[in-house]
């Protein structure tokens, strides 16, 4: 299975507005890589360029040792010759063909022998549990079934690279969970290189082996999901991944900033000087009735509980604290009710520190632990 490599890829639809900006991205061989970002960040454009459905204005796209696009060399391999699979958000099933014919389409073009075709169509339909709908037309299928057909259609020709453009966004919650499991299973079984576009961070976190976070056409970070979560490269990644979002305390504007910076300075003065923003994940915030319950060496600050939202397994607590409104997520019923003043505390190593430009700063304890992912914090 090949590695997909993009180097220096640029693309603009409207003159002067770059949809994708100088993108260098390496999708590892056999990985399940998610392109994650808010809408309009260029992730779908990137995917379509890999498929050849859009063409870059500059740069190069390679799969394995095959150059698919190279503006400088004038090289372009049309989508129909790229041997990839692409699943569209809208499924894009052909309404005039039955499920079987939809799945069969690519094989017919490849001039497979009839028994071979029948075998592979049956195989693909079985893998996605759609054999019973073989003779129906797409309009007679539910969204989830259509989704499966659309996947089967691409799997039938067994491409090395499978590109998925927000394939789950049109499904309801239960089906989405089912399809996530299904996709993960297929990936494990078949070992394609998968590139998956989504704006749903939960989807990316749960499915991907690698996540590429994009914003405004630029790659922000490419790393394993937990690395992205625990060591976000910048404030954008930090805020975008995680729900409720990370609470960001700005040195200039957060009301209680001084005390927090003092706390950081006490252990790591240089870090405190460089820090422009400090982020705290909601689940890192613990609540206590008073200061006595706070362990040694932890950042503690007073907050007022403004709302408690139980989700069943956890409690989301809305707080009025040094950063204005902030959230905590607790796994036990929170101390204090609405209107009560309580103490919030955060272990030192759970603070995310960013410089004025929003780039992550490495704290001393991390440097001691080397450059490995910070497993210790968990």
């Amino acid at each position: 299975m090949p590695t997909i490599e993009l180097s220096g890829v640029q693309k603009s639809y409207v003159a002067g507005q770059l949809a994708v900006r100088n993108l260098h991205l390496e999708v590892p061989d056999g990985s399940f890589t998610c392109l994650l970002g808010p809408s309009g960040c260029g992730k779908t454009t990137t995917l379509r360029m890999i498929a050849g459905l859009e063409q870059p204005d500059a740069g190069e796209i390679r799969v394995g040792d095959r150059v698919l696009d190279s503006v400088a060399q004038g090289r372009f391999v049309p989508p129909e010759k790229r041997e990839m699979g692409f699943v569209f958000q809208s499924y894009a099933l052909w309404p005039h063909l039955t499920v079987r014919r939809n799945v069969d389409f690519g094989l017919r073009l490849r001039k497979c022998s009839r028994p071979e075709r029948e075998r592979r169509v049956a195989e693909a339909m079985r893998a996605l549990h759609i054999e019973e709908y073989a003779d129906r037309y797409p309009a007679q299928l539910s969204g989830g079934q259509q989704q499966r057909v659309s996947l089967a259609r691409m799997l039938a020709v067994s491409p090395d690279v499978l590109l998925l453009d927000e394939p789950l966004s049109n499904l309801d919650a239960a089906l989405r969970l089912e399809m996530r499991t299904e996709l993960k299973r297929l990936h494990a079984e078949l070992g394609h290189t998968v590139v998956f576009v989504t704006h749903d961070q939960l989807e990316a976190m749960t499915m991907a082996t690698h996540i590429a976070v994009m914003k405004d056409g630029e790659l922000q970070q490419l790393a394993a999901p937990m690395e992205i979560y625990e060591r976000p490269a910048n404030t954008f990644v930090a805020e975008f991944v995680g729900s409720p979002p990370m609470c960001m305390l700005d040195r200039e504007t957060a009301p209680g900033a001084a005390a927090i910076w003092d706390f950081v300075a006490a252990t790591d003065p240089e870090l405190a000087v460089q820090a422009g923003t400090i982020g705290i994940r909601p689940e890192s915030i613990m609540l206590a009735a008073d200061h006595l319950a706070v362990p040694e060496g932890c950042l503690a600050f007073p907050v007022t509980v403004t709302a408690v939202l139980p989700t069943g397994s956890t409690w989301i607590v809305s707080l009025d604290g040094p950063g204005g409104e902030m959230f905590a997520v607790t796994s036990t019923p929170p101390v204090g009710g609405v209107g009560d003043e309580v103490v919030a505390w955060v272990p030192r190593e759970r603070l995310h520190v960013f410089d004025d430009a929003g780039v992550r700063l490495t704290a001393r304890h991390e440097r001691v632990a080397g450059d490995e992912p910070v497993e210790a914090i968990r």
Partner: protein
Amino acid sequence: MSVEARERPNATQEPPDRPSRVARLRYRLNVARHDPTLAIGIVLTAVLAYLVVVPIITLVIDGLQVQYGDQQRAQKDPGEWTTYYLWRVFRSPISELLFWEPLVNTLVVVVGTTVIALLLGGSMAWLLARTDMFGRKWFATALVVPYILPSWTFALAWLTIFKNRRVGGQLGLMEALGATPPDWLAYGRVPIIITLGMHYFPFVLLLVGNALRRLDSQLEDSARILGAPRRTINRKIVLPLVRPALTSAILLVTAKVIGTFGTPYILGLPVDYNVLATSLYQSINSRQTGVGAVLAATIVVIGVSILLIDARLVREYRRFVTIGGKGAMGRVNRLGRWRLPAFLAAAGVFTLCVVVPLGTLFLSTIMVVPGRFELSNFTLDFWIGDDLDSVGFPQGILVSEELYTAAWNSVRIVGLASIICAVLGLLVGYVVVRLAGTRLSSFLRQAAFLPYLVPGIAFAAAYLSLFAVPRGPIPALYGTFTILVLAMVVNQLPFSSRAGISAMMQLGREPEEAAQVCGAGWWRRTTRVVMPIQKGSLAVGVVMPFISGIKELSVVIMLATSGTQLLTTLSVDLVEYGYTQLANAVVLVIAFVSFTMTYIAQRLTGTSLAAGLQG
């Protein structure tokens, strides 16, 4: 240093060196080689530029250059620039007759027609969409019938009833019964307004009816929950939300009336009541090409301005008009004891606008002398006789060669034009959608829509000036089938291309792209995926232009010659000869064809009559 900044992944990479112009061009060409969309787009652009844009430019140039034969009057050589025609149309002693009076007449007709169409169409729309009147479903189709009939059907029916001795030929029914209608009732302003109103009210009915039906009932429910009485809801909520449709209907009817030729010609001629369209026709007919060009250009300018105003207003309105998809209209006004009168009113409108005109026309074709209801007076000679006293047309319509020649011409020309139109429309749609966002795409969309802004008769004038003489590789086309086909195609193109664009939009690019990713090249994608999916739209795309083309008069009246007689022009010729019964019979034939085709189209698409109606 105890702190190190983690770099963003991109920061280490150098910005891409922009590939050279040559390299980019080479890359582009390579892309284009695999996808002919761009090439098709360029060809379409050239075709549309020549068929749509060039004629209008030629028209303007013709109005500003001295024409052959006008050297003396303009005191310049042919081909030189001149303001002579402008002067002649707008400022000369005869401009009163050529332009100003027709302009005033046109405005009067427009206002009158619009008022009638609004009153009839608006009230019927309300009854159909918002009340529990009897037979709403039936009326929804029946009341659209006047719009399916050729517009000048009503003019012929009117003459058949109200014609007086001022004009020779067959007597009018009233005259025959002993009551001579005065000129003002028989010809000119009043009948033109009434008959055009009868033809165009369904247009208002459709537009306003759709708006009323689409209105989200939750909007009204909200008002009602807040305590608003029915009347207030209608006045404060429903009316403002329907206003865009009303405004649109008014402007579109106006634009259509300005370009309408048949009715004003038939009813206005006997008393020299000219509107712009007929004035233009007479100028062209008397070979005053320059004057005709100026008049046509003026009509174009008026037409374009009206539609631009419409587009502007529609945009304005779009800010607040919400099209509620979900809350399908469930609320109806209970008419109570007004239920029967409402039904009678609708039935009355149907009778007046469909039964009476068609009945009159039919009766006139089976009676020798109007108004005498004796068995001996009834005859089928006008349909199947072969010994009529009408010189040059001695046979009944159904056995005469002329009818079949004209019908065959109509079918051939309109049929060919419709097929070309449907294919062009889909191609335009394909390119517009595939290249969305490019300049080529927006040019194609606009150029294909441009003929909509140009009244038919003005377009015909433009075609006359463009194709009257050979230009470059294109020979003179006047008097040929080709020019009629081209004019028909262009006239219908706005609707076909709009249909094509929306069909392609609805399809989206994905199904084709999916085939592409699966390994299908362009030809395969087109024949295996796009065409089969669009089969239905293609069929509708052929039938719709056919229906509206078969009854088209304004576009062809100046382009058809005796060698290329069409059903519509044949009927007008017969009117001119004074062969009332024969003319009426031909119109009935056209109406019949138009009906049948509409019915087939309806069966074919499963949509209502209303949805498919266009020009």
